[in-house]
């Protein structure tokens, strides 16, 4: 008879209490830094808060949410945010995985290449936005030079002024940073993969693709879940790069929800509406993250 399975990390009551006490200081700090602003934001979202922040103002129930959901500006922004998020998550995870696979091989200069992987990740989002704004410039940008030299473009293109190009370019800029983050985590995961597994599979006649899909990917699943969930959250909350590159333009081509929130909260100081948008964005990010966990997560079982 098979031994009853237990989830990894299962603890006795005493250990659980000890663990709780250890975590308590961090939990209190988190409570102050996260829970208080979250509760305040939810409260603001159901009030007509005066711009000067003098109190909550009159309670308006769900009126701010009704205004948001009735606005075509919001729905267009949702469309942009979802498109941005899908592109960002898929590309940064796949490119990160490819970089991790490459840097897990033996080759001359591997140490240097691994060190360079950290550079984009260590660069602030805003700086990357400014760098990419210049890189994508239609007159002097390096991106145009590369693409025209490779004959992929017939002539220089004003990427950021073109509503069809602006969003893909902002996605690429964000992916450039986030792929390195994904690559670092996935490389760490790959380094725990025993060589014997691949060697045994190769002896059994497994092709390269079979070894990748049947050994590497399942082995990396926990890391992949972490990377993907973090990428989803980063994607929905992205502001800096888009703001630095296009401020949401041209028109509304790159107006992600976080830019809409910034404008409502800090530009025109509609605190109630901005807070309602922030709550909606928070829920979207949470749902996106949970969906990924639901799709990818499979509890690891070990013999007790």
């Amino acid at each position, binding site marked *: 008879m098979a031994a009853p399975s237990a989830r990894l990390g299962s603890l006795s009551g005493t250990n659980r209490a000890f663990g709780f006490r250890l975590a308590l200081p961090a939990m209190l700090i988190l409570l102050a830094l996260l829970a208080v602003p979250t509760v305040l934001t939810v409260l603001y979202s159901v009030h007509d808060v*005066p*711009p*000067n*922040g*003098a109190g909550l103002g009159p309670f308006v129930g769900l009126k701010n949410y009704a*205004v*948001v959901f009735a*606005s075509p*500006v*919001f729905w267009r922004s949702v469309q942009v945010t979802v498109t941005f998020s899908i592109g960002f998550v898929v590309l940064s995870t796949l490119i990160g995985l490819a970089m991790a696979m490459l840097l897990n091989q033996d080759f001359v200069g591997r140490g240097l290449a691994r060190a360079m992987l950290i550079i984009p990740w260590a660069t602030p989002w805003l700086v990357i936005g400014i760098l990419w704004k210049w890189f994508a*410039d*239609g*007159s002097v940008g390096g991106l145009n030079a590369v693409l025209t030299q490779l004959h992929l473009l017939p002539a220089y293109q*004003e990427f*950021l*002024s*073109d*509503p069809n190009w602006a969003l893909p370019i902002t996605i690429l800029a964000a992916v450039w940073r986030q792929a390195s983050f994904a690559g670092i985590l996935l490389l760490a995961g790959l380094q725990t993969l025993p060589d014997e597994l691949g060697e045994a599979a190769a002896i059994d006649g497994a092709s390269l693709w079979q070894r990748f899909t049947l050994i590497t990917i399942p082995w990396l699943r926990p890391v992949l879940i972490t990377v993907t969930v973090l990428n989803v959250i980063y994607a929905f909350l992205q502001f800096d790069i888009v703001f630095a590159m*296009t*401020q*949401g*333009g*041209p*028109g*509304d081509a790159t*107006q992600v929800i976080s830019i*809409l929130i*910034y*404008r*409502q*909260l*800090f*530009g*025109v*100081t*509609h605190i109630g*509406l901005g807070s309602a948008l922030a709550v909606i964005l928070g829920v979207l990010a949470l749902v996106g993250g949970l969906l990924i966990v639901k799709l990818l997560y499979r509890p690891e079982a070990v013999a007790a």
Partner: protein
Amino acid sequence: MSEKTNGRAGRINRRSFLTRSAAAVAGAALLPGLMTGAARAAFTGKLSMLGWDFQPDTIKSLVAAWTAKGNPEVDVAIIPNLGYSPAIQTRLRGGDKLDLYYNFAYNSQKFIDQGWAAKLNGLPDVDKLIGDMFESARARHVNAAGDIISVPYFSAVHMLHYNAKMLSDAGIAQVPSTLKEIYDASKKLQAGGLAAPYLAYWVKEFCEEYFHTYLLNEGVTAFDEKGAPVFADDPKTEGVFAWWQSMYQEGLAPKSVLTDDPGKESTQMAQGQAAFFVLHHYFLTSIRSIGGPQSNNVKSAPIGGSNFTLQIGEVLQMGNIADADEKAAAWNLMKYYGWKDENGKFAVFNQWAKAAGLAAPYPGFFTDPDVIASFPSYYDLPQISKVFATGSKVVPARTLAWYPDFQAKVGDLIHPLLLGQATPKQTVDALTKAATDAQGNTGL
């Protein structure tokens, strides 16, 4: 470089002054007659001032010079221009105490209504300050109810910077002035090989200024004094938008104009990549100082023909100060920074004129010999003064409390027009709705 030196010298003077000033201040408190201003003796604390980062060393040296004349010390904080409005609102909402701050004119009434700024009525010489202004500029600082809500930080008018040689080479004898003339001249220059002759700062945040400029050029004032969007009913509005769309769609303005900054556009003018650049008069300084092959061929001319252009100006506002002595001291600083020093000279404005060609909305500014000497010779000061006096409007609605909401939406609606995603008629309707929503405080 010299400005930095001046800034350092100013700080040193201020420090040395402060080490010796305690006794002087105490003495002045006992003998107020020795001082020219009662506030000078009465307020011994430190004033706080917030500005954006246009030449921060100059700001500090100007304020230090004021302190060195026996006035209170000033704690000057500088934050970036980009995002200044969100930043200052966040600070004030968070309880920051500011005696004096730069502000965008479109925020000024809102700040009064929110209790973040004080009305200036009744303060010494304030009526004289307002009386000194161009009549055209007063509505920016005095609202319809007669409340004085701000004083000038600087002012400017939208003008046409043009390359005289390119026009001459193309056989364009008369500098274009109306929208149609600019379109025709741009077409001619384009046909002659200049890819995109017309430049403007059409990024989202700035479309609102062009919305007014182009409408004024055709004789349409977008809002009446009560803030009603009368542009919606004027048949010329659609024509203005059709012109605007054509300028972009026909490639008379470069595709990148939706995201380019004025620094890049000044360079393009200096390099001869464009023949026209419509923006504030002082961008002539940028174009000339770049020293490109075409810099010296660029001149400025009024736009709008027999109609008007937009007069803009950013402002100084005073925080709501409870202490009477502190308020008097802050007002003295405001008068110095936004008008004249105690010798009746435009000391601060003169410095901005030297630094960047910025102007002050006072007729006396343009006839002051020191100011005239400060402007480079390529500026036609009488012409600019005339535009201020009779050729420009401030559109008073731009300072109303609801206006920032409208201002924030204009770019969102003009960019689709330029990109061909909306017709001129749809854009008129959308802007009318945006104005109505802003006044009703509804919608995103």
